[in-house]
């Protein structure tokens, strides 16, 4: 039990890390990674939804009739997204404004629905929470990594929280504005994926 628990948790961190290994949920990945703080905020919000929706889906898995399961999952997910939305408005309003419509769009993030359908609907609540937490943390780390690359090259800084900059390039550094604009997101993610393939495939 403890072993499989650890396995479900750690697979989200490397073997099935989204969005690199599971190419799902790309929209927030590309859109919010202009700054590390946005990436982290988005990752934490998604993790919250993922853990609680996995838990509830797993608890209700024997009650929900299989014909209407997708609709039920969507309602469960939408409920937690609304909680996150209201919570962020109350606690971290500036971040909420920056992430904009991508917070309500967690509802249609394929990772969340994908885990509910592929994992939580077949496993017990403890394993489902471990899976949600692992995938969520993996997602947060990938967002932060991509955001770090883009922010470092595009603006010359790394901002982790609300204006707290932990790293700044020297004055001679010319920001590479392409990286923080739309095309840079695609190119940076594509090249990181190539890098992962290079390391990962023996």
């Amino acid at each position: 039990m403890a072993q499989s628990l650890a396995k479900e948790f750690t697979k989200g961190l490397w073997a099935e890390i989204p969005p690199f290994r599971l190419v799902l949920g790309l929209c927030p990945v590309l859109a919010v990674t202009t700054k590390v703080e946005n990436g982290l905020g988005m990752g934490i919000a998604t993790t919250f939804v993922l853990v609680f929706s996995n838990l509830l889906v797993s608890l209700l898995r024997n009650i929900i009739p299989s014909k209407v399961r997708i609709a039920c999952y969507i309602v469960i997910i939408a409920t937690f997204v609304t909680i996150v939305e209201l919570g962020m408005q109350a606690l971290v309003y500036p971040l909420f404004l920056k992430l904009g419509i991508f917070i309500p769009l967690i509802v249609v993030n394929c990772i969340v629905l994908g885990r509910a359908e592929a994992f939580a609907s077949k496993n017990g609540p403890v394993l489902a929470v471990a899976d949600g937490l692992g995938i969520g943390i993996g997602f947060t780390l990938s967002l932060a990594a991509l955001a770090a690359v883009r922010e470092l090259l595009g603006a010359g800084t790394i901002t982790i929280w609300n204006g707290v900059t932990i790293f700044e390039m020297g004055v001679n550094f010319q920001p590479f504005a392409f990286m923080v604009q739309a095309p840079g997101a695609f190119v940076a993610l594509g090249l990181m994926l190539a890098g992962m393939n290079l390391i990962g495939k023996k």
Partner: protein
Amino acid sequence: MEYFELAIGCIFINNILLAQFLGNCPFLGTSKKMETAVGMAMAVIFVLVLAGVITWVVDAYLLKAFDLEYLRTVSFILVIASLVQFVEMFLKKSIPALYAGLGIFLPLITTNCAVMGACLLNISKEYGFMKTLVSSFSYAVGFGLALILFAGVRERINLAKVPKPLQDTSIALVTAGVIALTFMSFKGMV
């Protein structure tokens, strides 16, 4: 003229795929072949216009009227999911040819964030009914245009010799970046 500018803006400058980053999963998933790309583009145009109009009506006459804006996320996703289901049943019965053409792309649209995203954008920009109609249609056309262009390019890449780590999704993303770069040059058109 106002509507024309809005349409151009939504199709080219604020292209939903390449500038707003919405609907990227089907963008990468259905662009390997031209046929599937065309099917997806048609399905999105069809559903997005309907969804845009219906969510606007729901928002204006139900949510705003009763101060229920906090239920927007839940109600929109339910509207979209049931709309997709309804469209599917309707097409199956009355226009089987179109139904066969759209195939599996129709149910997939429920989780396409381009649809939900465009609806939310219309609401957040406080568009009226006509503007919502025009912008929903233009966003969908922009989606179709980018998807079909990208599918054309990807078919050519299949013939090229790509370095091993870059194969498949990786090279597709880099290519999408180059296409996004060309779309950036539309800035300043309106």
